[in-house]
Structures are given as structure tokens and as C-alpha cells.
């Protein structure tokens, strides 16, 4: 049972990281290779804010979220958009993909220069607590992480479904020209989507720092997994990202009881490939999305 | 004359929509047939079924009496059916010559041979002057020509033309009609989707009319254009009001 509880809590965090990725992909059809680096940046900022102010990490979300939104917004506005514009007529914008990969290199090394390469972790009041739910013990930090992930995903889903901005984002993803004809500012919506996708990372970061260490290459740890989650869940699908994340968390957690932890990594890749070959649109993706 | 192409009870459904509905028709070798019908009647879908882009829900496609249902597009091409696309698909970053050579490679593997074929075809369709121009720099009529040239380069017995005349001005139209006729006279069977009725009539000896995926009329141009059901389908309920 602990195995399942752990799979759930870790999986929810994977899902949270994948959420931003799936949003950006769903709207702009861009695979953002800088997602990991942006997560690292969020964790760095969260950690230092925590260190300097001692604020409760949950309050930090309100500060780091907007910061990362602006970062993402600016990235899209000044880096991605010019390249996207120049490749307007290309069906698969490969340059953007490489651009984000290069951006990841830049960000990681920038962080290395500014923050140094040390591993740090925020030791909050609940960092070392555990919560016992019957026979199952879960660390408080992870439990809160799970709650945050689910709540944020839920709020985010409602935002997409119920607000005008959310609907505009979805509409732009489904048909950008039709959206433009309906008066939606498409470039701006792209930037907002990128900003939101990045801001979601801030939430993941804040959920992570009480129990996971921060260092300049931390993004890489979660990066590939986030990709896998996104494809499993279906590119562009919000519930898919969360459920895909949980699925991966469970595979890792349960799989490791029957094989070595190293081989569960291979298992995860294998599951990913199987889904890709059998149903490329993922568990919840629609074939109309891509 | 023998039947070069035969569609038997061809049907395809997309979700709830039956795009082509129990279509039965055939083409005689060497003839030119027009396929007409309102937008959305299933003409292009029928083409896609013949060349293997879609697999029919039921029914068969026979080419030279051979069942080609279920073959992949490239296999159908090698059997001897060339097609053009309604939305022309030039290889934009290749020159006109290179575009046509791609088709020619269906029959030869030597670049020299392909270049020779391309040169002949460019002469035929009148694109020699544009030989070294990148395809995405061509005008619309030139693209339409290129589209035909690419299909011709695969040396087809049967050529499916999907609205190659649309958007041409009267002079261009006349030239294009002449070109298609001469292709037909070279012994290539032609099946064309066309909206420009006068052109269809000028080229085709026989016309099939589709509406809602079904064949509603078939016959000589005169027969078809005087068929009340056709007029109704084509001109909307105007017919009633007149």
C-alpha cells in the first residue's frame, strides 16, 4: 500500500510538471525542451526566496508563480515567437524545438554561474514529518505535494473550461485562424499559454523543494519523464497529463518491487513506446489535436 | 475497348458520415470521364479511395481487372494510376525540373533518364522556361501545370485530375483544355473532377454526377446537364423557384 501511495504522490508531481508541457504543446504545437530548465529556475527562485524570507512554501506559490509567468511570457514573446513567425509555413517547426533545447543549455549554465552547483533543499517545518494514514506512512511534504498537484490541476482545468481566457486558449489550440477571426489575439494567447505553462512549473517547484534537492541540472531529472507523461496522457490533454503522471509514478513504484530500480526506467520507456505505436494520441488525446 | 477501371459498390464512412455511398462506375480504356457534383459530394474522397489514401468500408476497386483495393498509394501509382491534388502539392523547395524528376523516378532509377523524361514532360506542359524555378515561386496556373506534369512523369495509364482547371482565366483555360485533350489523345485515360462545366464538356465524352456520395446521373454531357436531378443538386432549390 505504501508503494501505491508513493506512486500516487510522485506521479501527481510528474503530472504537474507535464501539465505545462502539454499546455504549451496543445496550444502551440511546440515541444518545449526548456521545460526542465525552467523547472530548475523555478526551484532555484523558490529555494532562495524561502531561504531569504523563510516564508511558508505554500505562500511562495503566489510569488514564484507570477514571476515564472512573466519569464515564460517573455521567452515566448522574444525568443519563440520570432522563430515561429519565420517558419510560419513549415508544418513541423523544428527550429523552435532546437531553440528551446538551446535555451535549456543557456538557463542551466546561467544558474550554474549565479547559484553555483551545490545541492540545496528547503527544510521546512513539515520537511521531516510523516503522516500516517492507517498502515501507510507518507512524508508530509509529499502528501502536501500530492494535494497541491491535484488542487492546482483541478483549478487549472476549471480555468480552461470556465473562464473566457481559458476558453480562448483552448480555442486557439484547436484552430488558431478561426480564433483570430473571432477576435482572439493569437500571439498574445500563445504568450499567455507559455507563461501559464511556465507558472505551473513554479507550483511543481514549490511542491518539490521541501523534499527534493535543487541544483542546476535538476531539470534533466524530470524532463524526459515529463515528455513521457505528456505522450501517455495525450498531447494537449489536462486530465491526461495528471493521470499519465500518476500512471508513471505507479509503474515506477510498483515495478521496482519486482525488478531493479534501473530496469523500471527501461520499463517506463517500453510502456511509452508501446502507447506511441499502438495509440499515438495517448490515453486521453484526441486525434483531432494533432 | 476494355474497362480500365471499375468501382464496385464502393463505400466509405467517416464516423457517422457516409462520404461515398455504394458507388458503382467504370472507365473505358482511352476515354475521358468527368466527375461532377456539388462541393462535398464525395468526388475527392472517391479519388482517394481509388489511389489507396483511404481504405473503403466496403466495395472494390478493379484496375485492368485486377483488384487493387487496399494497396498503398505508392503501389497504386506503380500499377499505372497518376493523380493530382485539389490543393496542389508541389515540393516547394525543389525546382520545377526536380519536382517532375521525382515522378519520373517511378519508372527509372537513373537521374539522367529522369531528367530526360522531365524535359519531355516540361515541353509537353509548357514549363521549360521555368525549369530552374523553385516550385513555391510559381504562379497558381503554373502550379496546376506542375501538378499535372508530376503525375504524368510517373507514366500513368490512367490519370486522375482533381480540379486542375479551377482558377484559370479563359485563355489559360483554353490552353489547359488543349493540354488535357492531347494527353488523352496520347492514350492516357482521364478521369477528372471539375467545376468548370464548359471545360468538362469540352474534354469529356461521359460525365458522372455525384451528390451526397451517391451517383445520381451518368451519361453524355448533354444528357447530364438536362437531367432535372442534376440541375437541382447543382443549383440548389433555385430549380423549384424558377
Amino acid at each position, binding site marked *: 500500500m505504501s508503494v501505491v501511495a508513493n506512486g500516487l504522490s510522485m506521479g501527481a508531481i510528474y503530472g504537474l510538471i507535464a501539465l505545462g508541457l502539454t499546455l504549451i504543446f496543445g496550444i502551440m504545437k511546440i515541444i518545449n525542451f526548456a521545460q526542465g530548465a525552467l523547472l530548475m529556475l523555478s526551484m532555484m527562485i523558490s529555494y532562495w526566496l524561502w531561504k531569504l524570507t523563510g516564508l511558508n512554501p505554500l505562500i511562495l506559490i503566489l510569488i514564484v508563480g507570477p514571476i515564472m509567468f512573466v519569464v515564460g511570457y517573455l521567452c515566448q514573446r522574444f525568443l519563440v515567437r520570432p522563430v515561429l513567425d519565420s517558419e510560419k509555413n513549415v508544418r513541423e517547426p523544428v527550429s523552435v524545438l532546437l531553440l528551446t533545447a538551446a535555451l535549456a543549455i543557456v538557463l542551466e*549554465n546561467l544558474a550554474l554561474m549565479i547559484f553555483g552547483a551545490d545541492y540545496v533543499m528547503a527544510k521546512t517545518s513539515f520537511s521531516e514529518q510523516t503522516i500516517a494514514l492507517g498502515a501507510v506512512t507518507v512524508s508530509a511534504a509529499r502528501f502536501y505535494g500530492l494535494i497541491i498537484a491535484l488542487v492546482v490541476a483541478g483549478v487549472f482545468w476549471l480555468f480552461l473550461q470556465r473562464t473566457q481566457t481559458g476558453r480562448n486558449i483552448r480555442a486557439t489550440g484547436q484552430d488558431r485562424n478561426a480564433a483570430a477571426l473571432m477576435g482572439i489575439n493569437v500571439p498574445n494567447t500563445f504568450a499567455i499559454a507559455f507563461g501559464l505553462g511556465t507558472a505551473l512549473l513554479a507550483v511543481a517547484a514549490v511542491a518539490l523543494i521541501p523534499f527534493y534537492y535543487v541544483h542546476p541540472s535538476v531539470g534533466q531529472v524530470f524532463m524526459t519523464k515529463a515528455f513521457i507523461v505528456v505522450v501517455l496522457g495525450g498531447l494537449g490533454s489536462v486530465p491526461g497529463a495528471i493521470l499519465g503522471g500518476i500512471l508513471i509514478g505507479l509503474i515506477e513504484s510498483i515495478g521496482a518491487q519486482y525488478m531493479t530500480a534501473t530496469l523500471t526506467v527501461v520499463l517506463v520507456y517500453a510502456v511509452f513506446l508501446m502507447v506511441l505505436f499502438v495509440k499515438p494520441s495517448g490515453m486521453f488525446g484526441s486525434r483531432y489535436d494533432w | 475497348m476494355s474497362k480500365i477501371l471499375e468501382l464496385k459498390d464502393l463505400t466509405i464512412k467517416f464516423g457517422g458520415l457516409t462520404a461515398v455511398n455504394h458507388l458503382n462506375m467504370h472507365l473505358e480504356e482511352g476515354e475521358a470521364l468527368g466527375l461532377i457534383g456539388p462541393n462535398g459530394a464525395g468526388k475527392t474522397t472517391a479519388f482517394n479511395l481509388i489511389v489507396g489514401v483511404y481504405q473503403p468500408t466496403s466495395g472494390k476497386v478493379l484496375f485492368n481487372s485486377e483488384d487493387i483495393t487496399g494497396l498503398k498509394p505508392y503501389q497504386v501509382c506503380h500499377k499505372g494510376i497518376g493523380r493530382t491534388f485539389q490543393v496542389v502539392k508541389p515540393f516547394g523547395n525543389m525546382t520545377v525540373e526536380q519536382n517532375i524528376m521525382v515522378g519520373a523516378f517511378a519508372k527509372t532509377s537513373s537521374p539522367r533518364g*529522369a531528367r530526360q523524361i522531365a524535359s519531355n514532360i516540361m515541353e509537353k506542359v509548357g514549363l521549360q522556361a521555368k525549369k530552374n524555378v523553385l516550385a513555391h515561386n510559381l504562379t497558381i496556373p503554373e502550379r496546376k501545370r506542375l501538378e499535372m506534369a508530376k503525375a504524368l512523369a510517373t507514366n500513368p495509364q490512367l490519370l486522375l485530375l482533381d480540379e486542375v482547371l479551377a482558377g484559370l482565366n479563359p485563355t489559360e483555360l483554353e490552353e489547359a483544355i488543349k493540354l488535357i485533350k492531347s494527353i488523352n489523345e496520347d492514350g492516357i485515360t482521364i478521369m477528372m473532377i471539375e467545376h468548370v462545366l464548359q471545360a468538362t464538356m469540352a474534354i469529356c465524352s461521359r460525365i458522372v454526377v455525384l451528390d451526397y456520395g451517391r451517383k445520381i446521373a451518368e451519361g453524355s454531357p448533354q444528357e447530364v446537364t438536362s437531367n432535372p436531378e442534376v440541375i437541382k443538386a447543382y443549383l440548389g432549390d433555385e430549380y423549384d423557384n424558377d
Partner: protein
Amino acid sequence: MKFDKKLLLLIGLVVILLLVPMMVTRPYFLHVIIMCLLWAYLASSWNIIGGFAGQLSLGHGIYTATGAYVTMMLFNTFGISPWLGLFVGGAAAVLISVLIGFPTFGLRGAYYALATVAISEGIVVIINSTHELGPFSVGGAEGLIVKMVGDSAAALQFSSKIPYYYLILFMLFLVIAVSYWIKTSKLGYCLIALKEDEDAAAAMGINVRNNKLIAAMISAFMTALGGVFYAVLIRYLEPNAIAGGSMSTQMVFLSIVGGSGTILGPVIGGILLSLISEVIRFYLGGQLMGLHLFIYGVIVLLVIMYQPRGIVALLGQIVQRFSGPKTVEGGVSGVKDSGA
């Protein structure tokens, strides 16, 4: 007359390249040049599938690893000369490319890229955990040490850098020749056509999947040779270094920054970019942590943003400006055949 000039130029270039070891006497410089040529070679090998056929493979590290490991395992265990082993290694890479290609070439664009990432990362883990494979020692994460036999042409082990220089130079010529052959042959036309529009290509009789597979096989074989060269040069195979993500993405970066889909683009990209990164590291390596990689990333960013067709297009424009209007002929746009 014009032809003579061009021929002269080509001969001049080849002579200069052949004379490099005479001019560059310090082994370190030669080593740097060799590494640059190796990267140019690998980028060109990737370009066959990634550039010509437009299939964004982010897992080419598999092929360098296959070539290197198979060849060196044969050498270490049975003493089979790498000269023979490289064919086995190349063949193994081709086999793997087919195994990967069959299911993945049905996928388009981003999905294909992600599939190659997953496959290659999975394989890195497997190599890392494999110590023995039948009679062969693989070494797992500890890596594979190439057995030393001293100077031996048969074992491709030299204490001097010069033989390696000529070897990689030859390989680079080879990959350029292969690229040239592909680009001007039926295969090349088919690849570019299917890259432009798969449906239109299929309608013109091109078997899209088979053509992609052939390109992937050639690319895998050439890449595997690069892996063999790496193995004999470095004489130590560390799974993450030879098969890992950085190996895979580096090839892509170099090729695209140089100008993918052209013959010379990846060569230029490979040489220039690895030279630049070497120079940056040379000057800044010991200083502020991460600075040199930061600068490297910024350079790549700038190229992608301002010269998306690659350095080769930029060079083309410069050359055109210097050589005046005479090169603008027949309305052909200047960028079109850059590097062709």
C-alpha cells in the same frame, strides 16, 4: 576555363587539408582538429536521415555506441582487427536502425523525435547495466577499455595523432561523397520529396517508409563508423558519453546550425561550432563555472533566431555579395542550392 578554376580550387583545398599535419605540429591542436572533423563527420551522417529525409532523430547516440561497442568487443575478445570489426559494427547499427525504423517511421514529426529519445535513453540504461554479453565483456557503467597493443595499424592504435587525422579526413570525404551521391540520385530526390510532402510523394510512387528506412540505414552505418573512430581515438567507451543524450543532440545541433539538408552545412556546422566551443573552453574553462557552455548556448540561440537556414546559407549570402551579381542566374534564388 571556369571549370579549371573550380578544379584548381578543389585540388588546392585537398592539398591544404592533406598538409595540415605538417603545419600543425602540436598534437593538441591536431587533436582538436581531429575532434572537429569527427563532429563534422557525425553531423553529416545524421544529416542523411535528419536533414535529407527530415526525420528528426534525437537518438543517434545508439549508432555511435553500437559501432564502437561491437567493433571493440570483437577486438578485445577475439582480437579481430577494427578494420574488419567496423563492418560488423556498422551492420549491427543498420540492423538496429531497421528495428527502430519499422515501428517509428509511421509516426510523424514530434512523436518520432520523442520515440527516438525514449529508445536511446532506454538503451543507455541497458548498456550501463550489462556487464557481459555471451563471451564479450561489455563493462556496464564502468565502461569498455580498449585493449592496448601499442602502435599497430591493424589495431588502429597509434601514438601519433597524424594517422587519426588522415583517417577522419578520409571518412569526412567519404560521408561528403555519400551525401553528394544521395542528393543527386533517385534516393535523394525521393527523400527530399517525402520531406516536403509525404502524401504527394506517395502519390508519385514513392514508398515513403522504405525510403526513410534506406536513409536511416545509411545514416546508421555512417554514424557507427564515427563511433568506431571515437573508440580507437579515445580507447575508452563510457556508456553515457558514447550513447547518451549529449552525443545524440550534439549531432543535431551541429547539423542544423550548419544548415541541415545541404551537403556542406553539417560539415561547416560541425567544424565551426566545435571549434568555437573548444576555443571558448580553452579561454574560459577554468573560470566561472558554466560560462563557456552558456556562451555556446547563446551562440546556438542566435544562429537559430537569426539564421534559421544555418551558417551555410549565411556563407552563401556573403560569397554572393563578394562575387557580385554573376552568380545570380536564371532567377534561381541564392539559397536554394546552397551547399549542393
